[in-house]
């Protein structure tokens, strides 16, 4: 458990670093931070009050300590655009992001591992065809794929909704109808994020399988008379999965990044959409809070991946 503790501390360091970076960036960026935080239409008195509240009239280290203190206490200010407390906005949003990213992560790894295994084991023409497919999926920009799926399934076929996580009438539906409504809203964003993810995972699994498939212990397993399926699953895949699980941790930031675009396209009520809207509206308190929450989510996901990897590979314990 000691390595895990070390990773947890490192993760804490990352979050700390992000908050510090934001402080530095705000100071380096053009414009008056006080003005940025209260908005351009604020009266001078309010700007002056914000200036004092931010402690801009105090020395830099003191300002930094105050900034850090406010962040740790969860005092993230109020949104310029909506007037709501930033913390409340994000508290409402993060479960939607975790739901979307989490389900997509599981699906894209399961599908990606299946495709990669088939490619590595079967080889030949099928491998070539699937390679073309996975590299194309890998290259698809999520926001564009999302738009194309919307064009097809929402505008042409009129099968699936393209916006939000639930219909306007959701509160008036029966529990089963409400569940179906939620699933229908989840379908397109989830499919988009998953399709893009499958490409990358399958490519990686295929490579990892091929690295292992010629190893001496695989030959030994065959020589012992084990069936081909058992050799593939227990000896090749299990070892190939170790780098794949490590990749899972490393790919989390990318997945969150992808989710930012997907949430913006599909108006999915998560942290990514809040972030994009806040950036477009120059709503700084919200941008800062959403950045911090994203960093925390990524760090937590990384720890989870670490746990999984140590479960798959006893040598890591």
């Amino acid at each position, binding site marked *: 458990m000691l390595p895990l503790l070390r990773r947890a501390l490192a993760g804490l360091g990352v979050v700390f670093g992000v908050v510090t970076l934001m402080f530095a960036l705000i100071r380096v960026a*053009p414009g008056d931070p006080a003005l940025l935080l209260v908005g351009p239409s604020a009266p001078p008195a309010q700007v002056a009050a914000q200036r004092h509240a931010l402690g801009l009239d105090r020395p830099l280290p003191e300002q930094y300590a105050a900034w850090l203190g406010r962040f740790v206490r969860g005092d993230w200010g109020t949104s310029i655009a909506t007037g709501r407390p930033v913390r409340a906005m994000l508290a409402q949003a993060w479960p939607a992001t975790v739901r979307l990213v989490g389900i997509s992560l599981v699906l894209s790894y399961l599908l990606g591992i299946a495709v990669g295994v088939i490619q590595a084991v079967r080889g030949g023409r099928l491998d070539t065809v699937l390679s073309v497919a996975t590299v194309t999926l890998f*290259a698809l920009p999520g926001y564009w794929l999302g738009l194309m799926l919307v*064009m097809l399934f929402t505008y042409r076929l009129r099968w699936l909704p393209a916006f939000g996580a639930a219909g306007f009438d959701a509160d008036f539906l029966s529990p089963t109808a409400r569940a179906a409504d939620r699933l229908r809203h989840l379908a397109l964003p989830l499919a988009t994020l998953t399709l893009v993810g499958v490409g990358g995972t399958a490519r990686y699994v295929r490579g990892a399988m091929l690295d292992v498939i010629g190893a001496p212990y695989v030959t030994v397993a065959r020589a012992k008379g084990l069936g081909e399926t058992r050799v593939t699953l227990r000896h090749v895949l299990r070892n190939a999965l170790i780098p794949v699980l490590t990749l899972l941790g490393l790919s989390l*930031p990318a997945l969150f990044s*992808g989710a930012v675009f997907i949430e913006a396209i599909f108006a999915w009520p998560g942290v990514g959409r809040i972030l994009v809207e*806040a*950036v477009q509206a120059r709503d700084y308190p919200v941008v800062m809070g959403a950045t911090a929450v994203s960093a925390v989510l990524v760090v937590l996901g990384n720890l989870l991946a670490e746990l999984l990897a140590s479960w798959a590979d006893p040598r890591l314990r």
Partner: protein
Amino acid sequence: MRGDAGRLLRDRRAALGAAVLGLAVLAAVLAPMLAGDPIAQGDVVATRFLPPLATDPLGAFHLLGTDRFGRDVWARLIYGARVSLGVGVLAVLLSVVVGVAVGAVAGYWRGWTRVALLGFTDFALALPRVVLLLLLASLWQPSALLVIVVLGLTGWMAIARLVYAEVRALAGRPFVESAVGLGVAGPRILVRHILPNALTPVIIAAALGLANAILLEAGLSFLGLGVQPPTPSWGNLIASGRDTLVNAPWVAAAPGVALVVVVVAATLLGDALRDRLDPRRNG
């Protein structure tokens, strides 16, 4: 090295990737000869939303149709290639410079420099890149230059790690030790003796990084935080087609297809380079 290039081109993926990228670059460079003005609007009412392969009332042919302002989609696509490819290439160059510098210094000099640089690299790797991009894009005025700087400064970590591993391995090799023995200064050893031998992974990472940079530029411009219209970039072209998906799907489809084709080409080239140049994979 020349033999390597020949063998590389016999790999179908490398040949295809290089050919497609070459064509895209050629089209971008020759844009004024291949297409009309990407910004000019004629008679908007008569020429807007023409489907692909249509000829407008003035007799002008539109290979990929027109957008809502009657602008030629083909022309915007070709001129957009200039911006998208240019930004991608410059961003990757910046990443390579930063990544090689950080990786080389960390790999060659032991002690706290190494610890600090590696720690910083790990920290940067753990950040969600798009979140950082959005944060930066919100603090400064969006422009092509900002996108290059931001993409460059958030994309160097993989290169730094590769160079670090390579330099560290090379630093113990006899030819480096003999250079040390001859009294050659540290920086000179690093630049003249070690780095030229450590560049293989950089080339591979750069090809794959290019694919990523082009995608991200398009993403930022798509959100309105990158290259600003009316200057066309593939990202803001996709965004401009977003509202007209129903009656003019070609406006968003064309730049998306171009994006996918170029990114696939860069990825294939990167894959082939890795298989060819990475000794561990050659067995």
